[in-house]
């Protein structure tokens, strides 16, 4: 999923404090799973903002709606007849949702309520970790199912570097050395001899470096 983290309250307040009618828009998918922007978090934010404004002596209208997702036009469309009264929207969706909202509702300022962080998964309750950088040419078949591009701090394709210590990365003892994980896995799979194959220089043109990307499927286009 896309993993996000709540923006500090002070930052959100700084962005919307001049408005009189605010809509907080939660999202029912990724940000719900990583407990950053779902219905629950939206409710908490609304209550906190209401109290903030009341404390300023201002009667600001703040409402909450949680959409199924904000990255599909159909769901964003659902509020087209309800968004009028608001002069600002705080979207708790990931950066994708915020941008889809901004594209669809051009006259409404849409503010992000979370910091979108990475593509990852739930390692434990309350701990989400990065797994994928979206390079566009997945090499997991050659690395025992562990991605050195997302999990090696230097994205080495022929690692590890000389700083790997006791299975941990040189930059932080809490970060696993991705290459240690890959080596252990190759051994477990009985494919340790593959370690000595030289990984070729990567084509980064399908990564961010090649510019904003798209996926087209003509077979399903209407």
């Amino acid at each position, binding site marked *: 999923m896309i993993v996000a983290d709540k923006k500090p309250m002070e930052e959100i307040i700084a962005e919307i404090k001049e408005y009189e009618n605010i809509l907080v828009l939660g999202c029912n998918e990724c940000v719900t799973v990583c407990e950053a922007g779902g219905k629950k978090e939206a409710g908490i934010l609304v209550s906190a903002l209401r109290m903030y404004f009341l404390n300023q002596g201002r009667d600001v209208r703040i409402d909450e709606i949680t959409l199924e997702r904000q990255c599909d036009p159909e769901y964003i469309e659902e509020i087209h007849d309800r968004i009028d009264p608001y002069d600002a929207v705080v979207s708790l969706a990931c950066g994708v949702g915020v941008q889809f909202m901004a594209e669809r509702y051009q006259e409404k300022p849409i503010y992000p309520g979370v910091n979108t962080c990475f593509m990852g998964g739930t390692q434990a309750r309350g701990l989400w970790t990065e797994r994928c950088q979206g390079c566009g040419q997945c090499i997991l078949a050659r690395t025992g199912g562990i991605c050195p591009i997302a999990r090696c*701090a*230097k*994205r*080495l*394709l*022929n*690692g*590890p*570097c*000389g*700083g*790997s*210590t*006791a*299975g941990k990365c*040189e*930059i932080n003892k809490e970060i696993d*050395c991705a290459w*240690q994980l890959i*080596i252990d896995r190759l051994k477990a799979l009985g494919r340790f001899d593959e*370690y*000595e194959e*030289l*990984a*070729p*220089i*990567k084509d*980064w043109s399908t990564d961010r470096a090649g510019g904003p990307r798209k996926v087209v499927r003509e077979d399903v286009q209407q």
Partner: protein
Amino acid sequence: MNVNTPSKLEKILKAGHLAVTSECGPPRGSDPEAITAKAEMIKDYVDAINITDNQTSMTRLCSLAACIRLKLMGLEPVLQMVTRDRNRIALQSDILGAASFDIHNILCLSGDHQSFGDCKQGQNVHDIDSMQLIQLVRLMRDQGKFIGGDEIKRPPQMFVGAAANPFADPFEIRVPRLAKKVKAGVEFIQTQCIYNLDKFELWMKMARDRGLHEKVFILAGLTPMKSAGMARYMKNRVPGMDVPDEVVKRLADTPKDKQADEGIAICVESIQRLKEVEGVSGFHIMAIEWEEKVPDIVQRAGLYPRPAAA
């Protein structure tokens, strides 16, 4: 003896001598004296001088410019190049820049992570890694081609080196890694500085078992300890460093004003022992900010005078 480049280092190694190299760290400023002064101190005692490339991610005068300084002094530089800061365009470009000044030695490295240095918030590049850089230089040299396929006018003639760390984890892949670098085309290796001689000799044995010592020249890295404090620091705070307790103890048991001398003695003794190890082709003495000791170490280790490159 067939050499692939005009490199003096290559000639000395292929002639069967034990080579001696050392390194100079460029200044955190633009004063060329900082390089030339260090080089003057050591030039008669080494065959080639490495210039580090923004070591530990601290921004310094670039390796290429400092190597050119050495070249203008008539000395033999080794251009250290990390892949952390430059993409493949810049890497090829800098290689050509070095070649235009007839710099004939390159050391291919990935580089320490930028979080260690003075620009923790910066991006890192790592467009290619150190192994791929080795392949790249060999391509440019042997086939006279850019990575994109076009021809290079006056291709670089560089003797290609890389680093090896017998002391990093996991130990079991340290020799396979050496084998990989050999496959990629590396011609000489400079190792991380050695304090645990037993472990180094084990690594050498494993390398010999695979015949790697005949395919690549291995220069044993050494750094003299200035004090027990330095020994402890390197033991505990530097990733990939193996400093045995006996070394720390030996220094700690020495009175403070004699610890530096003891550190030099340990270094010289290590060289004497490593001279006897089959497959060791030379020594890379990294006396960081202590370059004035290099002549002493080289002389006491019986490695002076240096052979003239024919």
